[in-house]
């Protein structure tokens, strides 16, 4: 079913919107949540919650990309879940990914006082636009879809170590870019 048709099911309050969403994007969302949380059961709960949240959001929201809409909700739910159960240190995947992302944060205490998520997202998008497609896709796969370094390396026929170095360079580049942008602000 086309995305537009699924959105219309939501608009018309047809309960089949949920099953159609699940059929088309369920496995992708499950994969993303699983990548982040490393637990099938927790991922499943995130995905089920994704459909419920979508049901509440559409309408009035009309997503530009249904895939991005669902995955974003799943990612945020996965983060909430991580926060709630952080003390247990169960989510190794999430820990690793967040630690990697920490490396991209520019230094300077003023940053955390002012910058908002949407503004930061805009900066990251502009940085991604300037990258070569291969690097851009690698970054988004790793930090948006939560694909493991091992899988990314296999997809590009590289060793895990080479891929880790590549990602470290990308993170360093992003940090420089953010630092520069921030200094200009």
């Amino acid at each position, binding site marked *: *079913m*086309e*995305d*537009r048709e699924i*959105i*219309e099911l939501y*608009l*018309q*309050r047809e*309960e*089949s919107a949920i*099953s159609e969403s699940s*059929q*088309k994007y369920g*496995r*992708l969302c499950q994969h993303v949540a699983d990548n982040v949380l490393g637990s099938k059961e927790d991922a499943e709960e995130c995905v089920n919650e994704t459909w419920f949240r979508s*049901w*509440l959001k559409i*309408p*009035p929201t*009309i997503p*530009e*990309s249904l*895939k*991005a*809409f669902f*995955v*974003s909700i799943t*990612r*945020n739910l996965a*983060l909430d879940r991580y*926060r709630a159960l952080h003390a247990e240190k169960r989510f190794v995947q999430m820990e690793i*990914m*967040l*630690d990697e*992302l*920490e490396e*991209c*944060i520019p230094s300077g205490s003023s*940053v*955390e006082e002012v*910058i908002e*998520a*949407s503004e*930061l*997202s805009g900066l*990251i*998008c502009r940085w*991604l636009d300037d990258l070569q*497609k291969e690097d*851009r*896709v690698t970054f*988004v*796969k790793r*930090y*948006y*879809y939560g694909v493991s370094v091992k899988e990314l390396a296999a*997809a590009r026929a590289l060793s895990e170590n080479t891929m880790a170095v590549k990602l470290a360079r990308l993170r360093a580049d992003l940090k420089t870019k953010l630092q520069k942008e921030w200094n200009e602000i």
Partner: protein
Amino acid sequence: MKKEDMYEAISMLRSDLVEEADEKEQKAELKKENGAGEKTAVKNKKRIYLMRYVGIAASACIVFAGIAAYMKMQPKQPQPPTEAPLIITDIDPSGIMPDGYHLEASDIGEMFEQTERDEMLNALTNHYVKISYPILFDPFQSGILPRKFPDYLPVYQKQDISCDQKAFEDFMNLYYEKGREFMGLTPAELMPMIETYGLQDKKLMAGGAVGTGDHRESMYIFERENGLELQITDYSRLRINGEMISLSAEDLDDVIKSELNAFRTKLNEHFGTDFRDIWISRTSGSDQKPLQKVTILLYDKSASTLQNDYFETPMPEEYYKLSFNVNQGAGAIADWEDESEEAAGRLYLTQIIYHRAIQSYDQYLQVQGKAKLLTVEEAEEMLSKGYVFGFHSCPLCMASQPEVDFSEYDAVTLSYISGKNGLTVPFYHFYKKLEQDSQKLNSYAVTHVCAVALDGLEEYFEEQKLNHPSAGIMIKEIQIPDQE
């Protein structure tokens, strides 16, 4: 800034970046690109078929003309009665062949939803053939049966038709206002509804919703496949100038028609139409509740350019579609929770659609050829072999449905199905009665056999079987809950 903020910011990445990185999307695109060559090959093959039959028909015409000329020269003698002579007709200049249209089984497979994520091309093979959704209607009572099936019917291909932005905006400006007046809304009440306007899946749309809690009214303008639509919805029941319209779940068609007379006149007068024909359809819900929805089309049958009785629903270029619903049930925002005696057993008007085609149907559905249809006996053979096609093919859903034995089916009908690829082909639909519900409506399971002879049928279904093992594994892993 914390690392979690970074994570949240990445959650808000632009959708094009997100789409670009999705591997499955890329694979699908690659497949699409590769598939384009195959499609051309199929088309070329069809062209070769057409040329072959043009050749055969032309040669036959010459032979026939020669024989006719020779016969004319002979002295007339009394002839003994013989069987009906073979008639070879001239080739129709519109491209309709006497019997020369050929389709590949894979073309039909492409018509239906595919679940590529489950590594399946089409789930409907022997294994899943007998499974289908129950539907609520009685082919005998609805006047579809008994019916004589034709020998030939055209096969259509939908054309890609879109409207220009100005046409959309003209329609939008006119029908927002008409819709507002019809619903008895003030301009101030309408304004918050006009909150989006833009492209969605390459089609224009505009509109929005107002209200909170259990009362949410929306007004949208949609560009459809071949049409523009005004859609007014309130799943907590539409209030037209404060008044709600309802039907009884037990109303027969004649009662519904007479009850809707006043409302139909009101619509016609307000929107400047003169629709006198009414078509009524009843459907069950996904949870197999007896009667969930009544859909009604108001239209003018004589005005349609497509006079083909084998479409399941009427095909007018302009119509109103009215949806009457029962309470949506727990969990839905539109649950109206009206437990009054007055509301019991009633379906309420929740949506009005006014639809107008961009192009007439004779432009939109272009005849590809006139196909010789299988006889019912031939179709039964296809059914027994499991050579059927279908719609929803999610293995989880299919496996959760009860199997139905179609060996002694109750009814067979013939009507067109339009596929995802725009191909519009006649199918035989075999019905098996499941049970009679409390409202005495019969519930049937249905499965579909392509009514046109197909090339490469056996090979296609053999190939499909190979895709099934993976689906079987998936079902096993997911562990389907028992259906109570």
